[in-house]
């Protein structure tokens, strides 16, 4: 049956229910387990093959040798697209995604971070 205001019952019911808004940043929603957030690097496992650098779509990851069989890893947080291809490509599972998504900064220089332990 056609008529105006068909959403009225739902609308009046919603006025009494709890709102669907999440009061971020006072309430933070937990991201699911395999969320692709900021990268984390385990320098013990890295062998310096630099396959991750080759596969990165935006030149965001940089592996540097700091000693015999020791490597460190820099990530440009503003270039990274959080695709996770480097995680898949690494033959030794040295990279993984964390659930961290609050990555904003005030200066461009702050966004080049060392993601090792």
């Amino acid at each position, binding site marked *: 049956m056609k008529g105006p205001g068909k959403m009225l019952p739902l609308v009046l019911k919603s006025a009494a229910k709890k709102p669907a808004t999440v009061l971020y940043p006072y309430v933070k929603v937990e991201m699911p*387990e395999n969320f692709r957030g900021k990268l984390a690097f385990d320098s013990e496992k890295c062998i310096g093959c630099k396959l991750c650098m080759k596969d990165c779509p935006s030149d965001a990851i940089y592996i540097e040798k700091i000693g015999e069989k020791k490597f460190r890893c820099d990530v440009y947080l503003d270039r990274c697209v959080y695709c996770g291809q480097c995680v898949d490509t690494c033959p030794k599972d040295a990279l993984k995604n964390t659930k961290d998504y609050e990555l904003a900064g005030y200066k461009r220089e702050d966004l080049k971070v060392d993601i090792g332990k």
Partner: protein
Amino acid sequence: MAKIVIPVGPQHPALKEPANFTLLLEGERVAASNVALGYNHRGVEKACEERTYIQDMYLLERICGICSHSHVTCFIQAVEEIAGLEVPKRAQYIRTLIAELERIHSHFLWLGVAGHELGFDTLFMYSWRDREVVMDILAMLTGNRVNYGMNTIGGVRRDFTKEQFEQISRAVDILEERTKYYIQIALTETTLLARLKDVGKLSKEDAIRFGATGPTARAAGVNKDVRRDDPYAAYSELEFNVITDDNADVFGRTIVRVKELMESYKIIRQIIKQIPDGPITVKAPRKIPAGEAISRYEAPRGEDVHFVKANGTDKPDRVKVRAPTLANLAAITHMINGGYLADVPIVIAAIDPCFSCTDRMLVTDVKTGDEKLFDWQGLRNYSINWYKERNIDFSKIKL
């Protein structure tokens, strides 16, 4: 009232992305209109030629936020055809599952945008609240709410567990109930019907003549759907109906989209029941042998066509993307002329435009009259020289 020329765009509250529709108005009626695009051109096709196939996947994903999986799957299918790879069945099913979830996401987004264009903000808020259910499911499955990154050459990157399938089932049950409510509202709310009926008319002959695709054409009675006509992924093993409607106007497009949501739920339930076990990927070479392939895909907005030409290296020779919105835009001037100014936003919104998928840049030299298509390097050189003439030198800027 005299004739006035109103620009709808590039910046306008009715448009979600920039495009320029210039309307010639007589009072409230649109006498003539003109479409000018190009504001979202980013040189993606040229950029694809300088990156490897794996990097191209992520570049093509970011052509558009709502059709991201469509573009990647279409591209990957073309590449796999050139390389002669046989993708395992489980991977096909997973690709189809994500594709249908993306279709649900896109149609809920469209419902909200249409409500907002009509001044019906309540519909906008409620349909986007329900869209959050789908986005949370996708975040749980793929790791991100948009730009899912599920595909890799030769299959998919992630496998799903039984608990995840249970969660998808529950979410689909909730969404189905909400969709039934929206169907009921769309069919009975008088103010909505008054704004949607007899607006943006496009008859069946005109739809075929202008080359419209997707829900825009199916609402006019054109019975074409790539999922049934040219099955890809797992669609040849799934049963579903192709929804067409005979109201060749915006109301018809609304009905087609909402009923397609119900079909998507049916498909997802079949997938969860029928998905076979097995590997999720097959080993793919980094260098794709020479060859070319065309791949078609039914994106939420219509038919998406990708052409890929490989030359034996690990970078493609040419990638061409024909997005569905480009096909539907040709019909816009026909639909707007003769209508009211008040209907222009909803008619534009009814083809579900995604200008990010669409833009090219054609430069016409007014003095000599010849036209030239700019490629990426040409565009870069042009802009560097332009700024040099104005004494701005970019070489000192470190990016």
